[in-house]
């Protein structure tokens, strides 16, 4: 790659002066106004991570309250009204406000670093997505505290969530909170796709992209296809049914109550993989680093990711086996649901092969990988069981399914995520998390998870349906429920240990240095935490593991201007230098437009006219936003040394 025209060996350069100039260009402005205008990729991602983690804590507290209520039969701690709000907000929080945005936030932080980019493709859009998400978060939680929390489950099945059976505005809150998360997820997805396709460091051809980046790319495409489905369902159909009395879901007027389930699960099933794929993408760098070897079967893993994404859209009916859908149609979805176990199996086998041929060190992230294997495989197996129509008709909507989905999401989502926290915390903060507390956290968490959720399998098969706030003593469900509650409190304790560890380490942890694990990814090639411009010089990549290259010289790109936010764009397939792009600077308009959208969607609950008002004032903001973006752009065609013509700004 050293023959690239813009790449040259950096023999001697005034790195410090260059860095200072870059920092002056790229840093967000200080002060409150600067804070509100911030667009710097890592700043926004850091805010995302912290907010989504707060949402995880909130959702966890709701879960703990529910477990306390269910600990004993006929418990009078929480009544049905509050309980229904709690489980709905728990599900909504964990799926929409924690899992998806958290996985995206990790991507928004790490992907530009991993591909050697200065920033993300659309920083202002990114900021807009974040503010939008914050509006949704605030809206949901204010609603919950004023007794307006949604109460029909995170799936909001009509007609229960329709206008006739959910009076007031509780379900409207759910429908619009989903809207906010859809918008922010789409903003993140578009950003990640363009960043991965156009902003990779020279030389990082598609077959050299880190597996985590592949996972984020695949998931971004999944979001682009899945989110519009739920947007149609909730924001359009459900909200219209409720606000202006349309009849999408009213069978008496030609609507269809089952339609909602198709639309919801067409989004809802891919949603699971939107959470799961980035999480298992995090496993690969952890395993590589702590086994000190390249991952086994890179191509197979990437293909498995893509295959999973395709199949994920063909499984939704397995959430609806108990509905009157013809058996032949159902069996198709059984087959598809079983097939999707194959790509997941491939990835698991590849990791085991990597472990096998490597020199494993059982650090805390690696412990979480093993915890993932133990917990997730169980969830995967119950998943295959549930793919069977005959068995699903027994287990559907019981605690068996509750156990399954938590095994999958905690095992397949949360365990890798915690591993990733321990792995990348030094990159985020410059300090290491404490290992002893980390191990305590791990053991409490794994034991807590299994003690909580394993008994639920048995409870479900003994007839306990999900979403019940009480049960009679004669049902005999008391003992296992008590056990599950003890497990849930253990999980709470483990998360507390993690919090203490995180806060302590953030302020007084051991300094990490640039690359504490001697890992291979480009994100470790810069300081911890990285500067506002990520890299002084954009690196040039010559293999899948740039930092494990044995040659002394690491070629870099020079020639990008440091007095404005210049970014090197590269070609999609081979990552050949293509053109320059000038990134935007900080702006208040993303926040303004997000607030206007907030007014639009929240107001639409109370009056359709607020939609008009919201669109009107949003347009003003969008106008100024666009106006600011188009200033100072001059385009010039120049010839590269290899004879190709490129646009130069």
């Amino acid at each position, binding site marked *: 790659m050293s023959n690239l025209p813009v790449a040259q060996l950096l023999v001697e350069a005034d790195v410090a002066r260059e860095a200072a100039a870059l920092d002056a260009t790229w840093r967000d402005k200080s002060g409150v106004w600067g804070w509100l205008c911030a667009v710097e990729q890592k700043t926004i991602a850091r805010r995302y991570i912290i907010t989504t983690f707060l949402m995880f804590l909130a959702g966890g507290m709701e879960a703990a309250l529910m477990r306390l209520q269910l600990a004993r039969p006929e418990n009078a701690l929480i009544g049905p009204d509050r309980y229904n709000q709690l489980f709905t907000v728990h599900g909504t929080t964990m799926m929409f406000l924690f899992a998806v945005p958290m996985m995206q936030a990790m991507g928004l932080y790490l992907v530009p670093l991993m591909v050697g980019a200065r920033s993300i493709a659309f920083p202002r859009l990114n900021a807009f997505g974040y503010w939008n998400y914050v509006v949704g978060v605030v809206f949901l939680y204010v609603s919950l505290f004023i007794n307006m929390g949604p109460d029909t489950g995170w799936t909001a099945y009509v007609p*229960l969530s329709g206008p006739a*059976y959910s009076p007031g505005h509780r379900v409207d809150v759910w429908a619009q909170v989903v809207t906010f998360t859809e918008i922010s997820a789409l903003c993140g997805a578009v950003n990640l796709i363009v960043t991965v396709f156009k902003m990779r460091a020279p030389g990082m051809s598609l077959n050299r992209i880190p597996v985590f980046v592949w996972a984020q790319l695949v998931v971004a495409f999944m979001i682009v296809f899945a989110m519009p489905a739920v947007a149609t369902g909730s924001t359009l159909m459900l909200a219209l049914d409720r606000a202006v009395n349309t009849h999408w879901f009213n069978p008496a007027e030609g609507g269809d*109550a089952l339609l909602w389930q198709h639309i919801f699960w067409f989004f809802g099933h891919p949603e699971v993989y939107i959470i799961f794929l980035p999480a298992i993408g995090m496993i690969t760098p952890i395993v590589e680093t702590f086994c000190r070897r390249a991952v086994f079967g890179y191509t197979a893993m990437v293909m498995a990711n893509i295959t999973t994404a395709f199949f994920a859209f063909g499984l939704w009916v397995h959430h609806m086996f108990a509905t009157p859908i013809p058996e032949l149609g159902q*069996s198709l979805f059984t087959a598809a649901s079983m097939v999707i176990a194959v790509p997941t199996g491939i990835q698991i086998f*590849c990791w085991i*092969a990597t472990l096998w041929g490597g020199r494993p060190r059982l650090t805390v992230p690696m412990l979480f990988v093993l915890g993932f294997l133990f917990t997730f495989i169980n969830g995967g197996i119950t998943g295959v069981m549930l793919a*069977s129509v005959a068995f699903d008709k027994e287990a559907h909507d019981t605690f068996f399914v509750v156990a399954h989905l938590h095994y999958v999401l905690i095992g397949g989502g949360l365990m890798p995520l915690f591993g990733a926290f321990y792995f990348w915390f030094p990159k985020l903060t410059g300090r290491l998390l404490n290992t002893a507390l980390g191990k305590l956290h791990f053991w409490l968490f794994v034991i807590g998870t299994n003690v909580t959720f394993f008994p639920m399998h048995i409870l479900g098969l003994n007839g306990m349906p999900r979403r019940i706030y*009480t049960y009679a003593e004669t049902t005999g469900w008391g003992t296992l429920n008590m056990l599950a509650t003890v497990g849930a409190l253990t999980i709470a304790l483990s998360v507390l240990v993690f919090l203490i560890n995180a806060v302590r380490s953030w302020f007084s942890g051991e300094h990490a240095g640039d690359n504490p694990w001697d890992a291979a990814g480009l994100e470790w090639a810069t300081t911890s935490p990285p500067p506002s411009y990520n890299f002084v010089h954009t690196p040039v990549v010559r293999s899948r593991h740039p930092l494990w290259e044995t040659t002394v010289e690491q070629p870099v790109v020079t020639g990008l201007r440091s007095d404005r936010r210049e970014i090197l764009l590269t070609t999609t397939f081979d990552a050949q230098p293509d053109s320059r792009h000038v990134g935007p600077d900080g702006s208040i308009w993303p926040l303004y437009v997000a607030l206007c959208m907030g007014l639009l969607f929240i107001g639409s609950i109370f009056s359709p006219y607020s939609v008009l008002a919201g669109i009107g004032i949003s347009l003003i903001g969008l106008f100024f936003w666009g106006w600011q973006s188009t200033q100072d752009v001059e385009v010039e065609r120049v010839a590269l040394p290899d004879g190709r013509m490129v646009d130069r700004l």
Partner: protein
Amino acid sequence: MHSFFDPASPQARAVAGLWWWMFGVGMVIWFGVFAVAMYAARQPHGQRGPDDLEHVSPERHRRMERVVAGAVFATILILCAFLVYDFSIGSVLAMHPKRALTIDVVGHQWWWEITYEDPNPSKRVGTANEIHVPVGELVQFKLRAADVIHSIWAPNLGGKKDLIPGYVSTLWFKADTAGVYRGQCTEFCGMQHAQMAFYIVAEPPVKFAGWLAAGSIPNPPPTDSLLLHGRDVFMQRGCASCHSIGGTDARATVGPDLTHFKGRAAIAAGSLSNTRANLTRWIQNPSALKPGVRMPALELSPGEMNALVSYLETLK
């Protein structure tokens, strides 16, 4: 009393068989894969190169590729076995009964309306929350929902079906062991989803036929003055605006049919056993026992309550 592990119908037995097979295979896979992973994580198997990285010889790499491919192939085989087994069970379960006793079940917030259809309207039997079925005969449920989606499932008898507004769905099974099987609504249906249970009473065909025949014959009108007073309370103090009792003027269909009320084992959709004390407590203030329930608390004097409960107790 109610468990998937204790099947009482050929249908449930078939699914339980499938489950135990899947459980066994699943356990082997779970612990097998994890054990291999642990073994792999325990000790290094690679060769350290001069770059301090682990390397695997091409020959060894190919061998590992074969092992991984073999594991993937085994996964596919196991899944195929699953699939074939599942389809064979599914095709057994999907066989429509040509002729079967058909029972109409309508899901309401938060109780089950049961009707045994008969071409002769006077022979039609209405009841609630308790379904009698003959042992050894195929029974078909015709399922409808009056308001929101409900779902019916008796773990011992197998099968689960949603009751969806605008759809009529069916569910069938053949109870082969006599007994009382509990089930409850499994699709979240609002405030009292938790207390929407039902019982399926599987009894010998002769006994069932007797029960069904008796079902369409109303109780004789009371003669005792206390019971007459009780009936008047029922008719005049609001009960009759929602409930019906065969053979009387009470014909409302808002709440459960009470013609043979005392013949049922439980009240309030399976929440309370059908005793005099529970019944009194229930009528006094239903929402204290089942918050959000649609049945109102009636302001009855102790005398009226006594008479009313006495009357209801006679509806055998």
